[in-house]
């Protein structure tokens, strides 16, 4: 049996009367690219925040990287990377300084940081921009850099929350190449997106509607089940049932 990196069992988050995430159960295997789809407000980000230890679940169980989300959230943090919807590198630091800072607070050694920084810069074709402030980079480059920073400390699992929002198609393609490279190295990728072509790139896809997971399978199987030509159609069929507005 393959190692399960995420096991969620009836995981729920309520804010007062509002149930943002309503008893979701699923698991994700090591090295998998897991697409986490859903309309705006379906509860994707909340679910992701619970799994990454940023938000306390109301009920249910979840294990991430082998640790319990209730009690061992700080241990989970050592083993995951996280790239939020908001761009979260320091714009007033240079590319190199951002890499160094985030690697440093994960406790990586200077030798490791030095060596790997050059590797990452080369991979991103940012070597000549390494000492420029991040705010001077175009959005697509920033997003690729943020991804590389999120997996710099070599986590078991990385959470990506709409990483390609607002990015042009060419850069999106490059971004997905980075994701494949990371997956090939054994990093599990948990990604939310609104682009259905990106959903096709995932090994398995779950679709959330109103806080629940309504479908979970490989893209090919989902298309078969819903008698659809594309993931777009699958998504529309499911998302139309939603009662929750934006």
């Amino acid at each position, binding site marked *: 049996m393959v190692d399960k990196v995420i096991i969620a069992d009836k995981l729920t988050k309520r804010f007062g009367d509002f149930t943002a995430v309503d008893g979701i159960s699923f698991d994700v295997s090591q090295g998998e690219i897991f697409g986490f789809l859903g309309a705006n407000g379906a509860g994707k980000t909340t679910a992701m925040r619970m799994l*990454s*230890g*940023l*938000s*306390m679940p109301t009920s249910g169980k979840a294990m991430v990287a082998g640790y319990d989300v209730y009690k061992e*959230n*700080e241990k989970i*943090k*050592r083993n*995951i990377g*996280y790239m*939020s919807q*908001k*761009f*979260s*590198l*320091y*714009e*007033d*630091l240079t590319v190199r*300084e951002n890499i*160094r*800072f*985030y690697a*440093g*607070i*994960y*406790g990586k050694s200077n030798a490791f940081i030095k060596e790997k920084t050059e590797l990452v810069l080369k991979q991103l074709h940012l070597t000549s921009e390494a000492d420029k402030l991040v705010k001077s980079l175009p959005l697509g480059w920033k997003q690729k850099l943020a991804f590389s920073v999120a997996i710099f400390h070599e986590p078991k699992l990385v959470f990506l929350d709409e990483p390609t929002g607002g990015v042009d198609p060419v850069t999106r393609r490059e971004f997905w190449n980075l994701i494949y490279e990371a997956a090939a190295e054994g990093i599990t990728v948990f990604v939310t997106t609104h682009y259905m072509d990106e959903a096709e790139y995932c090994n398995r896809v779950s679709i959330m509607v109103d806080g629940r997971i309504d479908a979970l399978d490989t893209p090919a199987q989902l298309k078969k089940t819903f008698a659809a030509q594309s993931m777009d159609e699958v998504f529309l069929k499911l998302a139309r049932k939603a009662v929750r507005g934006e």
Partner: protein
Amino acid sequence: MRVLRFLLQKEFRQIFRDPSILRLIFIMPVIQLVFLPFAADYEVRNIKLALLDRDHSAYSRALVNKITASGYFMLTANCVSFQEARAAIETDKADIILDIPPAFEKEIVKETEATLSMSVNAINGVKAGLGSAYLQRIIMDFNQDIRTEWIQFPRFDQDTRIAVTFSNWFNTSMNYKVFMVPGILVLLLTMIGANLTAINIVREKEIGTIEQINVTPVQKSHFILGKLIPFWILGLLVFTLGLGIARLFYGIIPAGSLVTLYAFAAVYLLAVLGLGLLISTYAENQQQAMLISFFLMMIFILMGGLYTSIDSMPDWAKAITKANPVSYFIDVIRMLVLKGSGFGDIGYQLGIITGFALVLNGWAVLNYHKRS
């Protein structure tokens, strides 16, 4: 510890790259300490006087000369009727009316007693109070002059008089700037300390970088120390700059030991930074942080004993000043700078400020959650 080093390195880089922080740290103290003390003057000058001299005698003229020569009064209206003098007050041409009755000289000479009347515009209470006090003092002096002129043999003076001589300790020339400048420095330190910390952390909240930090294994205590230490150092830098300005511009050299002064300032800064930290855990955005700290600063400044004496406040207000860290430092800095008190004399205040530092920082740490 290694993690803390990375946090500090990042914080210092950001501070020295942000021109607005540098401006705040270096230009604000200079402006506040160089210009404000000249404006925040306790002495009342240029009191506008409307004169209604109905006597036109030698004595009345001598009195008026004495008043205008004092330097505190400007004769702005020379009136012939009370209506005219009243109009001068109503149109703000005068603050005080001095009414000299028709038989002023005659009464002094004949009955050795005369009446003057004074009407004061009391809208500005301080000016009215001090203005009339100055005027009374001048008139008493004038009275004294006349008496000494008349009494040929002072030995047989029938009135017993007590003359009081003054000697002003600790601020011998009664220079109000010596009194104000250290106090303004305390306010400056409070504002810079609390605001910089609060705004800095709330800005990270707004940008979203704090969430990125929260998802790393960085410990709460390391994150907070990474914020406190840089601003603590900046605060001490501002304090040094302020003491330098006080010495250069006003010749104020602390009478007490510098070590004691810095020791107190160091603990005080921890308390103030803790306050900024606490504000940042409650505020969601920079506007909220600014408003909360502005609200607190108003209370701190008005109830800190800088502009008004705490001893003359009502009891409930005195109770509030006990919860105001500013009041303790203003007390201490005056004791250390003016009086030259030693470490033993400020033990009480140091204890209280240490308490403030522990409570505020502890509260902030408890209220800062990596997970919501």
